[in-house]
């Protein structure tokens, strides 16, 4: 990030959400890189941009199509890379043809000159980084959004080289590591396919128990299975779905109607309060030894510095004890023993001995052997001649507007996000004596406030098709008319996710937290909106 020429942050407010990553961006800027920020809001990240493309919520695909067409029409594609590394380019070229700059401007609200500027700067750069976050993935068509950004990297060859890449910025300290370790419905550790008999046989042999041969459900499918009452027992570890899921009122109903709900957490969360059994777990990052994997695929050591309080126990110990009572004795493995077992089963972790992880301050996977230094960036194979592995495909992606449509009744687009000093549902951040903490607000555009007669600090009722909540209004000049912003950090006070829609991506299962249709009214003490709120409370 520090040694590149163009940095594109698309749907990312990294200055607030990934502050130390943004330090590296700032070093890049100081070294001469140009920064482009694509975000409906004028965020603190956008304040640093050379060019801020303020698109309408949910028009990312349209914008990417217009950028792609401009790159192609200006003759700025990397033709040698296209020929060597990709497939489906001719069909893609025809597919983007209708997306002129003018059409892009009309659809996204971004001036044509800015779309052109992004296309030319990105394509002409020797090195360019394209990063995205939840602004891209918290949509009902998240996978299509991501594909449309990947296409830009393929068109220009900005992938698989030093200083050039396409990077999703991970939002949690071990969301990458969870996937690495097989906490996915269709993968075993090391991203090995659970339905591959050869792979599974190695696990069966080592564990002495057969691994179920079929893939499981992802989170959204689990809630669907709860709706059908096929999924009747639920064991939740370190997650707070009663507050973190979209359309939270509905989710709580599903959680409480299981045959058994077990929650393992370090706090008595709102989800734990609904549970039949609560296992007090520990803060893995500081009360146990282990590893996490960060956004750059770096496996890093966590170390125990504190004893867990009261009856809280190491999460591994809880799992092992539960397993024992269910009839399979795993013993009492140490973190290093578990790690060494992983190295036997997951080739990409093979070379990461506990000692090397200590000595090297973490190692980036894949690292197959103990003499391997780790891998700084992926996809270098696309440049090899002949190419290593299969070609990177272009996929024909069509725009699809947000599910929760704007109407006269719900005319304002609510988008959600994070603030610098808080984290998700506030389970970890609600306690520290944070001078930046403010009560949850709905941030509104000055023009909307003027039209609706709402002054700064007024209490308003925000109504979506699912619920209504009362919240304090804040006027944000960084919002254009028709756009509003909230977080769900303070869900006990203002439960923003009662408003959001559980419209999910069919492949990834992510909900459309970024696009809710709402109306905002000055508070009236006795009105239908308040009744609706009371019904959900």
């Amino acid at each position: 990030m520090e040694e590149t020429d163009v940095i594109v942050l698309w749907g990312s407010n990294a200055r607030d959400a990934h502050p130390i990553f943004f330090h590296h961006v700032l070093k890049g800027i100081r070294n001469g890189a140009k920064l482009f920020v694509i975000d409906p809001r004028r965020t603190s990240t956008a304040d640093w941009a050379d060019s801020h493309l303020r698109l309408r919520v949910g028009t990312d695909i349209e914008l990417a199509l217009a950028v792609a067409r401009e790159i192609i029409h200006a003759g700025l594609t990397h033709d040698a890379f296209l020929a060597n590394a990709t497939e489906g380019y001719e069909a893609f070229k025809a597919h983007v043809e209708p997306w002129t700059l003018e059409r892009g401007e009309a659809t996204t609200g971004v001036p044509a000159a800015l779309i052109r500027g992004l296309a030319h700067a990105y394509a002409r750069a020797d090195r360019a980084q394209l990063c995205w976050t939840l602004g891209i993935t918290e949509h009902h068509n998240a996978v299509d959004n991501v594909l449309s950004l990947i296409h830009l990297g393929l068109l220009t060859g900005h992938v698989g080289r030093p200083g050039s890449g396409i990077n999703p910025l991970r939002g949690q300290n071990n969301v990458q590591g969870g996937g690495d370790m097989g906490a996915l419905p269709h993968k075993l550790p090391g991203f090995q396919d659970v339905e591959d008999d050869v792979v599974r046989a190695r696990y069966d042999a080592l564990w002495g128990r057969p691994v179920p041969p079929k893939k499981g459900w992802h989170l959204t499918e689990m809630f669907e299975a709860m709706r059908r009452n096929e999924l009747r027992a639920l064991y939740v570890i370190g997650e707070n779905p009663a507050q973190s899921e979209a359309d939270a009122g509905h989710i709580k109903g599903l959680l409480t109607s299981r045959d058994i709900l077990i929650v393992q957490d370090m706090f008595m969360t709102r989800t734990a309060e609904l549970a039949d059994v609560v296992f007090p777990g520990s803060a893995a990052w500081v009360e146990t030894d282990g590893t996490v994997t960060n956004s750059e695929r770096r496996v890093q050591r966590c170390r125990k510095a504190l004893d867990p309080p009261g009856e809280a126990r190491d999460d591994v110990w809880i799992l092992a004890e539960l397993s024992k009572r269910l009839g399979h004795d795993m013993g009492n493995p140490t973190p290093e023993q578990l790690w060494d077992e992983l190295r036997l089963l997951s080739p990409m972790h093979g070379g990461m001995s506990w000692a090397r992880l200590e000595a090297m301050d973490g190692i980036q996977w894949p690292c197959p052997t103990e003499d391997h230094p780790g891998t700084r960036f992926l996809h270098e194979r696309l440049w090899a001649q002949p190419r290593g592995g299969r070609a990177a495909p272009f996929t024909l992606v069509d725009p699809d507007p947000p599910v929760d449509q704007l109407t006269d009744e719900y005319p304002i687009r609510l988008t959600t996000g994070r603030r610098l000093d808080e984290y998700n549902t506030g389970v970890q951040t609600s306690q520290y004596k944070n001078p930046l903490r403010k009560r949850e607000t709905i941030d509104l555009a000055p023009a909307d406030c003027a039209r609706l007669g709402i002054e700064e600090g007024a209490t308003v009722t925000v109504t979506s098709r699912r619920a209504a909540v009362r919240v304090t209004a804040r006027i944000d000049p960084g919002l254009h008319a028709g756009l509003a912003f909230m977080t769900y950090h303070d869900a006990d006070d203002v439960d923003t996710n009662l408003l959001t829609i559980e419209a999910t991506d069919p492949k990834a299962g992510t909900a459309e937290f970024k696009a809710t249709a709402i109306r905002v009214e000055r508070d009236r003490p006795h009105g239908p909106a308040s009744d609706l709120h009371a019904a959900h409370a």
Partner: protein
Amino acid sequence: MIRAVTLTVDGQSIEVPEGATLLDAATALGIDTPTLCWAANLTPVNVCRMCVVELEGARTLVPSCARKAEEGMVIHTDTPRVRTSRRMVLELLQSSVDTSTAPDLLAYAKRYGAEPARFGPHGPPANANERDAHHPGHHHVPAGAEAATVHQPRKVDNELYIRDYGKCITCYKCVEACGTDAQNTFAIAVAGRGFEARISTEYNVGLPDSACVYCGNCINVCPTGALMFKSEADLRDAGKWDEAKQTTTRTICPYCGVGCTLELTVQDNRIVRVMSPPEVSVTNGNLCIKGRFGVTYVSEGGG
């Protein structure tokens, strides 16, 4: 292509890459050079003058932290002139600043035999905010019986960290960390000139009214304890800060996916301070408010 430069330090010939400093060359030879305002992750500002060395052919002593090595230079790092200069710097600092929580500075003072008492007893401390109201030229020539000081009450305007400018040697490190070297927030700068120079927010407003985002990257670089976790300051005030009972452990921040290394100081099963090691490539010694201060939930109530 980086070229090599050959120079002589204390009679030993050494080859360093072009762009290396005299401090780099001395360090490579195992020479321990005292520094206060220099840090590996900050741009040198040349203000403390602790690291000065004698360069043959130069009229003045040169700051080794910033001076680039040149072909054929002949350097002396431990001459009487160098030692006198370093001792004088330490004596001036100790005569005017409370250095009781500045371990490096105290060690240097011992090494160079600093005798700050020769400037007389400390003058009276300033009242709260008195020095912040001084304009250039306020500092009149003293009578000489007492040593003028920067002693003043500490500023406590939030629950996360305190600013004790009676311990500030104006090394600029906090300003650099808050500014272009890391955080780029620019909440603080040096106000005033000469003896009135001091670190200040804009118009000397309290931190809650300033641009401060409480990343604490200023605390991470402060060499004197002028900037300190409030949890540490409170324990020190109560006489309960006990380094013998403390452990230091490196782990990974529990928040976003960047994976910053946290260096936790733990006493009585409570986190009392969170620092960030400068040599780790992910963080370069920096953190945000969540990693720095938002991790104490594991200590509150329990433990």
